[in-house]
């Protein structure tokens, strides 16, 4: 077992080199690299935790915003519906009024036209009677050689046409 038989010859150099190596590891790794690695890991953990918290907060905000938006949209929908109903009612009323007005106008026009027609017919009839009376006078004069007064002719024509 060389570990025992060589011990007295090697222990000093073993210990010297071991202490040098351990001191180097302790200083460079334990005191140099390790704190930096731990800082990196801690920083990453903190970053992840902060990011998660921020994500949660943002999600809450998004939910709130969505709710507010939805409420606003609903309110706008309601307002729109009432506007539409109002506009419909107004349009209906206006249409009714216009129809009524147009009806009245049309009625007035047709009344006037009928009246004009009646007067035209009456004057035409009178003229026809006048012409007929004159024709009667002329016929009587030619055929019978007598004369008929304009009044009698007119009466005779009126009696015939009545």
């Amino acid at each position: 077992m060389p570990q025992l038989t060589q011990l007295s010859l090697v222990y000093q150099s073993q210990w010297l080199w071991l202490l040098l190596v351990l001191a180097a590891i302790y200083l460079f790794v334990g005191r140099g690299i390790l704190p930096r690695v731990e800082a990196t890991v801690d920083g990453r953990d903190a970053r992840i935790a902060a990011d998660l918290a921020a994500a949660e907060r943002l999600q809450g905000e998004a939910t709130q915003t969505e709710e507010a938006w939805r409420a606003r949209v609903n309110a706008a929908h309601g307002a729109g519906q009432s506007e539409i109903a109002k506009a419909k009612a107004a349009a209906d009323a206006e249409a009714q009024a216009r129809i009524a007005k147009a009806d009245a106008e049309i009625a007035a026009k047709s009344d006037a036209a009928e009246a004009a027609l009646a007067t035209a017919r009456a004057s035409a009839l009178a003229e026809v009677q006048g012409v007929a009376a004159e024709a009667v006078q002329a016929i009587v004069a030619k055929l019978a050689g007598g004369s008929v007064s304009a009044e009698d002719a007119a009466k005779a024509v009126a009696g015939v046409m009545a």
Partner: protein
Amino acid sequence: MHQFAITPLGSETLTGSAFQFTNSALWMLIVLGAILLFMWGGMKRQLVPGRWQASVEAITGFVDNITRANIGAEGRKYLPWVLTAFLFILFSNWIGAMPFGIVPAAHPFTVTSQFSITGVLSITSFAIVLVVGFWKHGLHFFTLFVPKDTPFVLKLLIAPIEFVSFMVRPFSLGLRPFVAMFAGHILLDVFGNFVVQGLNSHSVLGYGISGLCFVFVVGVNALELLVGAIQAYVFALLTALYINDAVNLH
């Protein structure tokens, strides 16, 4: 046993001087270089670590967990030493198990197969326990040997037992990694010899034994890697446990 022998480098014979450079010192420096090279990968400090940085962070996180779980929040103060011991034992064990012997003129050497090395590691841990214990608790540290809420008669019996078990700690702590490496490498040596002797026997039985032993050598080699990691873990764990005794008493 040749694999455990320390030979001088640069001179003919061992002189017993502290400044003599030996193969053991060379392999300690190789272990140191490997540790520094590996840990240097942790200096990239990227937010999203690459494989190398992730391995370094995994190892420091592993040892950090050991100290934190056993010592508590104060464990970080002792992490540099626990990590130093862990890395040194782990790298020594694994570099000692690497097949450098197939390179001509290279003589692999397992630093941790020397109890003069593991002994210093364990005595350092033990010294930290003593210094921290007496620094924090003064003479109260001796109450470590007296269990609480125990009848006085039992205390009389238990205190000496506790004291002896406490004093045995540095020996058990230092012998454990040494014995594991020593036994493992002897096992490899024995089975390796069987392989060669079986081949030299020029008989069917010899070839059969040779093949079987080769399978054993492969298996023991794999086991050796596992044992090397476990010994480093056990050393770190026990160091943390012992420091916990000193920091928190019972």
